[in-house]
């Protein structure tokens, strides 16, 4: 991937662009990585995790160019500029890399030890080729650790 990493809301309008560039992704396209049933599971996990904890969980799936940790932290900074207490889960299936980034409130509520454990859980699913399951389980584990808002 070249250029900026952008926060995508699928099927977005160009006029909703804010600080990030929002790529225009057609509503139905063969290059969408997840099937509707998988999307629905990720959506539910994201929403429940965020609602329970009051943190804003965010999932990125795509290449993480350069030093993956630094890039993920830049993405986190982008997220933190518009959302309060975010948690970023970035997965790059092509590079087989996974980054969980916390900061501020979310770093206090999700200790690194727990994040590492969630990363381990996600790895176990990813190794079996189950991206959706890994993301869902990882989110659930992070949310459980963060506790109620």
């Amino acid at each position: 991937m070249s250029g900026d990493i952008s926060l995508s809301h699928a099927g977005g309008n160009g006029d909703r662009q804010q600080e990030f560039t929002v790529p225009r992704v057609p509503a139905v396209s063969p290059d969408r990585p997840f099937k509707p049933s998988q999307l629905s599971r990720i959506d539910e996990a994201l929403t429940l995790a965020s609602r329970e904890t009051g943190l804003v969980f965010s999932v990125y799936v795509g290449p993480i160019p350069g030093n993956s940790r630094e890039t993920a932290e830049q993405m986190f900074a982008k997220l933190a500029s518009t959302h309060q207490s975010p948690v970023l889960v970035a997965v790059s299936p092509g590079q087989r890399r996974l980054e969980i980034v916390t900061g501020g409130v979310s770093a206090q509520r999700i200790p690194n030890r727990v994040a590492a454990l969630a990363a381990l859980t996600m790895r176990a699913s990813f190794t079996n080729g189950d991206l959706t399951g890994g993301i869902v389980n990882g989110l659930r584990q992070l949310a459980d650790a963060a506790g109620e808002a």
Partner: protein
Amino acid sequence: MSIIQTVLVFVGIPAGVFALFAIFTLGPGAIRAPRYRPGGSWDYKPVWYLPHPEHSGPVSELSARGALEAGSALAIASSSAHPVDAAVEASGGASGEW
């Protein structure tokens, strides 16, 4: 039975049954999108998902794909209503490889 009838019954019918089962077993896999395998390439466009805003209705009320889009769109829209006073820096987390 003539030779043609014999061939039709003893070759044609078994071949037909064989073809039918082949279609049923191989068909669904051929249609389905290729599954992710570790180490395989990932040629999809990057996606970045956000949850629904807190006060949206239950997840089940919304359709799967529409919900996700609405969620991220609303989250972006509502973010301007709650400006974040200080930029938070990344300070924790974990990395992994598989």
